[in-house]
């Protein structure tokens, strides 16, 4: 695949105009119709490691701005494995050239198989090598989702790949870059879009000691839970789907910093606790917990024999 240059694109627009039966005078209009759209966007290279693509799918659930507006007004999305039209070597050329030129933000989805680098490859290259060279040339690194932010499920106890978070990997490799961690399994679209909008308009948002944006992760789910009054009055749910506070079912809202209970998910439709399920702490640092620590129990711990 030949490299696409501006000159080639001008030629392409002329060809397109001819194909579409437009007059020659339309060509400069097509090629030079600059408006505010092209300016002020964040060049982004998006790489996936040990991931499920759930954070990408979650991002597509963003409403106002929706995915199209995010792509046209906020991001210059150089490469994204799930969305890019470029495939095979055409895709790898974009990644390689972008890394050569630098000046992008690197968004990473998924954790890094530090203990078994062969567990993830792309473009005939180990993901660990690819991530290291992409991070070195990045202006900043955004670790989106619990896998990238803290290791997540691929990094759970007994995992066979020695998977670690992106910041842990960068530290191991001695790569120093500004890092923003956006945990959550998946990350809420607003959390990522909010960070991107902030970076585009005002720079990196205020972060806490764990490099999480304060605007989304400064409060415990329990403290802003619609069932907090139930907790205060000691009205506890006895099993799933019950009314009352899920504290005795092992709800991890008291240990999890996130704003799900105020923000809700899927355009304000619902969230775990409103749907009759305890919080499993998917945005917590130690998600998905130790093998011996259940994500939740079905029976109130007050009743367990």
């Amino acid at each position, binding site marked *: 695949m030949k490299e696409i240059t501006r000159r080639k694109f001008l030629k392409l627009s002329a060809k397109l105009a001819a*194909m579409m039966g*437009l007059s020659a005078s339309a060509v400069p209009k097509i090629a030079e119709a600059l408006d505010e759209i092209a300016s002020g966007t964040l060049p982004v290279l998006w790489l996936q490691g040990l*991931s499920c693509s759930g954070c990408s799918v979650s991002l597509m659930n963003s409403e106002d701005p929706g995915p199209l507006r995010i792509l046209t007004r906020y991001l210059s999305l150089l490469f994204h494995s*799930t969305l*890019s039209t*470029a495939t095979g070597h*055409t895709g790898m050329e974009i990644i390689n050239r972008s890394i050569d030129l630098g000046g992008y933000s690197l968004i990473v989805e998924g954790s890094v198989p530090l203990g078994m680098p062969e567990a993830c490859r792309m473009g005939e290259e180990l993901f660990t090598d690819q991530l290291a060279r992409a991070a070195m040339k990045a202006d900043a690194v955004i670790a989106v989702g619990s896998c990238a932010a803290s290791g997540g499920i691929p990094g759970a106890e007994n995992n066979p790949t020695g998977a670690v978070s992106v910041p842990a990997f960068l530290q191991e490799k001695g790569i120093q870059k500004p890092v923003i961690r956006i945990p959550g399994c998946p990350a809420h679209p607003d959390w990522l879009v909010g960070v991107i909008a902030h970076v585009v308009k005002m720079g990196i948002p205020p972060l806490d000691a764990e490099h999480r944006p304060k605007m989304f992760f400064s409060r415990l789910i329990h403290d802003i839970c619609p069932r907090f009054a139930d907790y205060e009055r000691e009205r506890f749910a006895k099993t799933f789907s019950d009314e009352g506070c899920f504290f005795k079912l092992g709800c991890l809202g008291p240990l999890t910093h996130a704003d799900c209970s105020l923000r809700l998910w899927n355009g304000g*439709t619902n969230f775990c606790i409103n749907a009759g*399920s305890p919080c499993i702490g998917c945005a917590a640092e130690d998600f998905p917990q130790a093998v011996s620590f259940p994500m939740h129990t079905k029976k109130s711990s007050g009743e367990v024999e």
Partner: protein
Amino acid sequence: MIKFTVNIDPITRIEGHLAVRIEVEDGRVAKAFSSGEMFRGFEVLLKGRDPLDAQQITQRICGVCPISHGMASVLAQDRAYGIAPTENGQLGRNLIQAANFLQSHIIHFYQLSALDFIDVAAVLAYEGSDPGLRELKSWVNAQLASDAIYPAAPFLPRYEGDYLRETDTNITILKHYLDALNMRAIAHRMAAVLAGKLPHAPGLVPGGITETITAEKIASLEAMLSKLRTFIDHCYLPDVLETTAAFPQYLREGRGCSNFLVYGAYPDSNENTDIFPPGVVIGGELSPLNMKLITEDTSHSFYSSQSGLPPGSGQTVPDHTHKDAYSWVKAPRYGGNVMEVGPLARIMVAALRKEDSALKNLTRQTLARFNMGLENLESVMGRHIARALECKVVADRSAAWIERLIPGETAFQDFEIPENGMGIGLTEAPRGALGHWISIRKGKIENYQCVVPTTWNCSPRDDRGVPGPVEQALVGTPVADDHNPIEAVRVVRSFDPCLACAVH
């Protein structure tokens, strides 16, 4: 003789890490090798955990079809605990699964596949008033005139190829590409009404669902489904048929192994026939499903565990140095046969049964209208058509399920977790037959195995050296240009591969 080899790595616009190497002789693919490139070890890290963690953790196998894994897991646990959901619980589960199914099929055609056929640059000729298309047009214009190294990324650059030339059709499908972004989000909202959130729903549990059914939720579900059905009937299905008409050669290319496997899904107490009847087609003959015939070969996969084990006693011991291995995907076989799973398999099984079903009837009508035979469906466009047809059947049936929900009646059945037990959960993911096998000992997960649709479809060679379904479908495909093997990726994408699922 012109001979070349291309390693298409990465294959984008699918889920996950897939590479496909093709060896082309005389302009056609002579050999193909499909490689799953990412391994996490879900089956290993589930061992010793609380059984109730399983439906939460296994959903995280895949962000595109988490519900399918959650469903397979709660079905396996239902069996292990000896419980069954209430009517409300069953309907709720069906609707959660259906909603995610619709979102997956819509995203697959528009966001993942359509750009192999339609020409995004056609938007430059758009003169109408649709806000989305105008936004896209002015953005493409500005991008082309900008200094961006890759203007209009991630839509360009792309393989050069025979994209659709008809401006009106291009623009219509582009408009629906944008609408589909909204529609798939609506489908996720529909699932979230009953399951809490998507992706990765908390509310899918053994014994039913945790959400309560209210009249308000029913009204909300009806409104969302109505939009989705309109889109499926008036955009998705017509667009697939229009694309087929423009690329008739893809009703011949991409024939697979011609063996099909379906587990069935969406139990419905009101219907005699499942929406996706279970069954097996080998050599054109339909037979009942026999789970004992399923084994997983690993001789060409990166595992040192014994090859040919049944999933119930399956093992996952990673070994990236394993001799002759070229994929992290195992090679499941049915009585030693290579099997295709997914929309095409579901249609073939339904069509070959004596009994009528909505899927069989809709398929028959559509084939008659376009003067096609069942054999035309064993192709690239056939898989797209099968996907769109079953999408309509699932959406239509969902309307009946919503009507039968009863506000105020429980959707969750309490249960006890036994010290020891085992269960198999079988369902149909958007991409095909999905099974989870759980065994519980002393209240903890002793073993957990998943055999996933893309494990079947993207499997590497088995112990006897027989290639998997995608590998077989690629053989014979004409590929004109080693720099632009667009024909090959059209074949691969027709299977809707999901590699995070396949390897897990």
